[in-house]
């Protein structure tokens, strides 16, 4: 459903609600406002805490105090875990997954939606099944295979491999390509266009807004992932930021001067790229897109 019609329905709902008592509207506002506060406050507190010279856990500490503000925590965390290296590693991990998903995931999604071939049903069923296989069961064999048998520990390839093609993205791509009229493709095929040309010149331009949802969903997976890169990288120079920050929290923080400040400074650096990206693209991030993909 488009955003516009979603908005229209909301307006219709509100119109019919004029009968509803004022009290209920106020109650709804209070519930939603409280919800927003609970969701946003920890992020505000993350930023405030990362700027405090001395951690101030009192209620007054939740408000900025010019006498207690500093960027020293960012310098401190950078000295211990090298934020830049972490960001670059997270970036490489994420870029690898985005590349695999956008190229091979999109090809598979297109084939599932617009082409008739033997094994299509099985492939689609696999794409759904993969999403319900819990990672905890695969953790041990994947570690044995990738780190021990293939010797890919402390290696970007080993880090990217289990996430290379996002199955949820394959299902979303299929969903989008399915909505495009078949006649469009039949006509171009008769004109002698190759399937790759069809995908590149017709299908992709038509689903461009939808690509943003897929990019965002695919991005947050590897960027935020902790367990797998943590298992596979022991060399600090190769660790994504989520792993090096976690190592700081569990090992180093206890011996630091202002452990909370430094941890929160690292947290801000880790969270900022995703939060900024999300705020930029949120208007394209439409609830029904995700809903349809998860339901198949």
């Amino acid at each position, binding site marked *: 459903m488009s955003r516009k019609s979603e908005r229209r*329905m909301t307006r219709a709902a509100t119109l019919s609600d004029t009968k509803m008592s004022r009290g209920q509207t106020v109650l709804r506002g209070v519930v939603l406002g409280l919800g927003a506060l609970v969701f946003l406050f920890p992020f505000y507190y993350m930023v405030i*805490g990362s700027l405090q010279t001395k951690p101030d856990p009192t209620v007054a500490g939740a408000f900025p105090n010019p006498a207690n503000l500093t960027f020293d925590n960012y310098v401190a965390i950078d000295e211990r875990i090298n934020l830049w290296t972490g960001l670059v590693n997270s970036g490489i991990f994420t870029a690898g997954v985005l590349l695999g998903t956008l190229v091979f995931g999109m*090809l598979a999604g297109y084939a599932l939606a617009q082409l008739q071939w033997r094994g299509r049903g099985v492939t689609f069923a696999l794409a759904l099944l993969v999403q319900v296989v819990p990672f905890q069961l695969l953790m041990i064999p994947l570690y044995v295979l990738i780190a021990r048998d293939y010797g890919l520990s402390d290696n970007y390839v080993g880090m990217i491999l289990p996430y290379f093609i996002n199955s949820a993205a394959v299902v979303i791509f299929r969903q989008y390509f399915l909505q495009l009229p078949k006649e469009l493709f039949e006509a171009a095929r008769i004109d002698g266009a190759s399937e790759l040309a069809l995908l590149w010149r017709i299908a992709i331009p038509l689903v461009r807004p939808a690509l943003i949802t897929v990019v965002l969903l695919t991005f947050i997976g590897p960027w935020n992932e902790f367990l797998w890169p943590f298992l596979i990288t022991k060399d600090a120079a190769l660790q994504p930021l989520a792993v090096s920050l976690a190592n700081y929290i569990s090992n180093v923080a206890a011996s630091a001067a202002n452990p909370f400040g430094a941890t929160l400074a690292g947290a801000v650096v880790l969270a900022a790229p995703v939060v900024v990206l999300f705020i930029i693209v949120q208007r394209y991030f439409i609830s029904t897109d995700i809903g349809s993909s998860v339901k198949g």
Partner: protein
Amino acid sequence: MTAIRTGGRPARAGTPGKKRGGPRRKVGLLGRNPLGLLFSAPYLVFVLLVFAYPLVYAFWIAFHDFFFAAPGAQVDRPFVGLDNFVAAFSDPAVIRSFGNVGIFLLINVPLTVVLALVLATALNKVVRFRGFLRVSYYVPYVTASVAVVGVWLFLFSGSGLVNQLLGPLAPDPSWLISETWAMPTIAIFVTWKQLGFYILLYLAALQNVPKELYESASTDGAGAIRSFFSVTVPGVRPATVLVLLVSTVTGANLFTEPYLLTGGGGPNGASASPVLIMYQKGLQQGQPDIASAIGVVLVLLVLIIAFLQNRFAGERD
């Protein structure tokens, strides 16, 4: 589970074309567009390599005497039947971790369903600040667990803001170092972190509830609360089944939060999760066979729970 069931339909819809035969010269052994197979080949190879083979391998490891050996070394790994399962479950720490995840699910799953549905219903009707509210609800979901764990450590520490606000009501020992409160605090954390995703699912489902039902409920004199229970709740039942399934699977996968929030499942293993124990046993102590056995049992339990949820919360017809 719903995903698989609905997924079966398009698969079957694909086959009649083959049975009918169609224009004979066009339909080859690989279907009308064999190129489709070529396009999907990288993805299929990926699934075989990273999911199918490791999945089979996980079961194989669980039933054999498996240990880490130098790459290429020829070692004997005899079949040992259920020995690994017996060894795993005669360890009280393993039993405790399953109990812990049970506590986690009992708090996390109902809380998630209720809060996500209530907030999605309220959000669905609101017009002003819609964009702002959406962003604020989804932000915890898109942010790394490792980053927000940092803030929660600060908020819930002994002299943290939460205890400052609670004053004399603050638990002693504090949240994350108390055997009673460690697991519930983690459950609340994960509920908060993931709620945006479930709100998103419910918002999508709410668009499919026919507006006429609300109108006729209102004509029959039902108030907002009444129509919430008799129209909204049954109307979004498929989404509820999905939310139950996904939150249960997510809960069973719990690792990062006990590893970081409670310093590796403390105090005294009160917040250790099965996956944390799998990591400790399998990779730290070099017993991948026992860890795999724990994984197999965990997945079987999740499947049983998912089946029961589908049975009792799913559609009745």
